[in-house]
């Protein structure tokens, strides 16, 4: 510390309460303003002797008390009656008596905290450094001696006059209090540690900002994890208990859901689309209401429209996507307005949706039984809207019966019927149009170029082979696996081949 000091105050020491009281009166009467007495305990009468004015502290306490009480009322009212009303035993949302205890406590708490902190602030404390503490004798101010100090900052201060005044008061000792004449610069380590602490405090904030503005691979942080994860199985959870590792168990074979029993017992056709004799149900076995049709339309939009399109012509977005990707082996979805589909009994449509057909997968597990019937019912309405369009597109064949010549060979006639019922018609037209595959018109006897470069004539043997083993010979422009082996008997195959041969040109 530098030796350059300047005087801060003059300090006088007294031994008794009486001495300090009379000294205080004298200094007060001399008109000094910046001076104080220092005593080991509060001395009764010294306030008057010094002329200390009553503190305004109680007013702060009063204001704080009123604030605390009002906040208590407001807080409880807003929290329990407005923002989150508690309904307890039919009591009103807001009734003051039950809220009085907390209002009381908050009044006290606010008053006490304010009194405490206001007192220290008004006393200009904490202030650890005091020039007085540089004087050794001043240590007894908190023990058994009484001091009086007049600061040099006082306008009346005059080194000799002030000192002689203090001498007149009967001081036992008088000492000058010096204060170093330099700017109080905090040490460099303090600055550094503050800098480090300040930077350290920013780190959590930066982590938070990063987490808020970025996505994370890591799952959410559970600050209080208890019971977030319980020892129980929820839907689709894994379980080590079972061989397949799933907590959910599949329906046992041969059982059916409880709520369906009356239907399955009374009306098995409801589930299969077929009556007891094995024939398809002609009509939907549920009363078709407007709501039922709406339901069908909704389910159609969800499940069917992706391939078949909302209008049913078979150009849904998935088909478009597959076509644009040039997916090998992609079989475009059927146009649901085709006459043969329109002519199918409802039970057959239901079966197609349930079990799938050709390249369409079954939707038994994805759509409930009732909803599948609803779709079947809706399909009729959909087909009805597009009948005119369907006739244009599939002009020649609005009905299977119309084009069938009456004088046909029974075998060929059976083949013609099978062409529709076994749904060959979905890919192979009879009018020369290329659908998914080539038309049957003029197929027999024509020359087929194969992918291996050879060529064969489409004779009877070729036709039989192509039905039984579609991948044996692949015509140029097609891929293996496109056609499924139709589920037909040998007799039926004979009829089909006869029919195709009859279309020879």
């Amino acid at each position: 510390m530098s030796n350059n000091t300047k005087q801060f105050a003059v300090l006088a020491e007294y031994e008794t309460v009486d001495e300090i009281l009379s000294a205080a009166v004298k200094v007060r009467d001399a008109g000094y303003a910046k001076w104080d007495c220092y005593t080991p305990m509060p001395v009764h009468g010294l306030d008057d002797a010094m002329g200390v004015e009553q503190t305004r502290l109680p007013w702060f306490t009063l204001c704080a008390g009123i604030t605390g009480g009002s906040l208590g009322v407001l807080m409880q009212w807003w929290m329990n009656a407005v923002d989150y009303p508690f309904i307890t035993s039919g009591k009103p949302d807001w009734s003051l008596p039950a809220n009085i205890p907390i209002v009381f406590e908050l009044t006290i708490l606010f008053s006490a905290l304010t009194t405490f902190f206001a007192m220290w602030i008004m006393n200009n404390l904490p202030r650890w450094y005091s020039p007085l503490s540089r004087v050794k004798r001043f240590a007894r101010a908190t023990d058994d001696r009484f001091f009086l100090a007049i600061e040099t900052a006082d306008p009346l201060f005059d080194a000799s006059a002030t000192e002689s005044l203090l001498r007149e008061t009967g001081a036992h000792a008088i000492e000058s209090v010096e204060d170093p004449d330099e700017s109080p610069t905090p040490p460099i380590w303090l600055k550094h540690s503050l800098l480090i602490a300040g930077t350290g405090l920013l780190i959590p904030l930066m982590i938070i900002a990063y987490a808020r503005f970025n996505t994370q691979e890591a799952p959410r942080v559970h600050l209080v994890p208890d019971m977030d994860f319980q020892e129980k199985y929820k839907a689709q959870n894994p379980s080590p208990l079972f061989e397949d590792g799933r907590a959910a168990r599949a329906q046992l074979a041969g059982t059916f859901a409880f709520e369906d029993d009356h239907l399955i017992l009374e009306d098995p056709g409801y589930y299969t689309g077929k009556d007891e004799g094995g024939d398809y149900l002609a009509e939907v076995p549920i009363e078709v209401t407007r709501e039922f049709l709406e339901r069908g339309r909704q389910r159609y939009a969800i499940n069917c429209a992706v391939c078949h399109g909302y209008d049913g012509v078979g150009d849904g977005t998935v088909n478009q996507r597959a076509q644009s990707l040039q997916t090998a082996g992609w079989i475009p979805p059927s146009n649901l307005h085709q006459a043969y589909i329109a002519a199918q009994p409802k039970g057959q449509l239901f079966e197609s949706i349930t079990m799938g057909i050709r390249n369409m997968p079954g939707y038994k597990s994805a759509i409930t039984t009732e909803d599948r019937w609803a779709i079947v019912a809706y399909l009729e309405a959909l087909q009805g809207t597009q009948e005119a369009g369907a006739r244009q597109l599939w002009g020649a064949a609005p009905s299977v019966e119309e084009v069938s010549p009456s004088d046909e060979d029974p075998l060929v006639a059976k083949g013609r019927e099978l062409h529709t019922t076994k749904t060959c018609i979905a890919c192979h037209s009879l009018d020369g149009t290329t659908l998914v595959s080539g038309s049957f018109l003029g197929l027999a006897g024509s020359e087929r170029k194969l992918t291996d470069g050879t060529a064969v004539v489409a004779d009877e043997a070729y036709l039989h082979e192509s039905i039984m083993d579609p991948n044996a010979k692949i015509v140029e422009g097609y891929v293996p696996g496109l056609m499924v082996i139709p589920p037909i008997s040998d007799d039926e195959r004979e009829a089909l081949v006869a029919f195709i041969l009859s279309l020879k040109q």
Partner: protein
Amino acid sequence: MSLYQFPRWTDVIRPLLGVTALGAPVYLVLLFYYGASPNTLAVGYEPTQPVPFSHAVHAGELGMDCRYCHNTVDKAAHAAIPPIATCLNCHGDGEIGKGRIHLESEKLAPLREAAEGGEPLAWVRVHDLADYAYFNHSAHVNKGVSCVECHGRVDQMEVVRQVEPLSMGWCLDCHRDPAPRLRPLDQITNLGWAPEDGRSREEVGRELMEKYNVHPKQDCSTCHR
């Protein structure tokens, strides 16, 4: 005898005390308000899935309805993750599934493996409520609360991520004021829906509350049962 004295500079740092006394509570409040908020801890969770399934392509570009795959959402509490069979409807190879789209894709290899009898695909759950919170999907989607209200614009997400806090306060926001979050049932999976006639969602929602008899409960046992 030179006793320790508090140095003079302690006078200078007294304002720092005031700053600390006032600043520390503010800092701590900020730290906990933002640090412990689910917006920090939960929102933005974007795990890598075993198969890079793109909702943006399927639900967005192709316009597939959410319920094509999540078909239990409107009749059960749980919105099911679809079985592999559903994927194979389009991504099969002719034998184990019928469509053949992206038959050769490497990205779909885990799918085909699983289909051939391997382990099921372990999809990573993105939206996971605490086990003590009961949530019923069907109760919401059948009353006009669209998927988008909780899951965000999944139809625009290449990878699904959590966009809402899924906190209790956030649930209550809607239970206390459901109107602006409702939409007609036929638009429930149309994530980009907005009222066409220029009316506010609040206004439309008020009507729908009447129509669908929407009176969300707020008592504890509604969700903690």
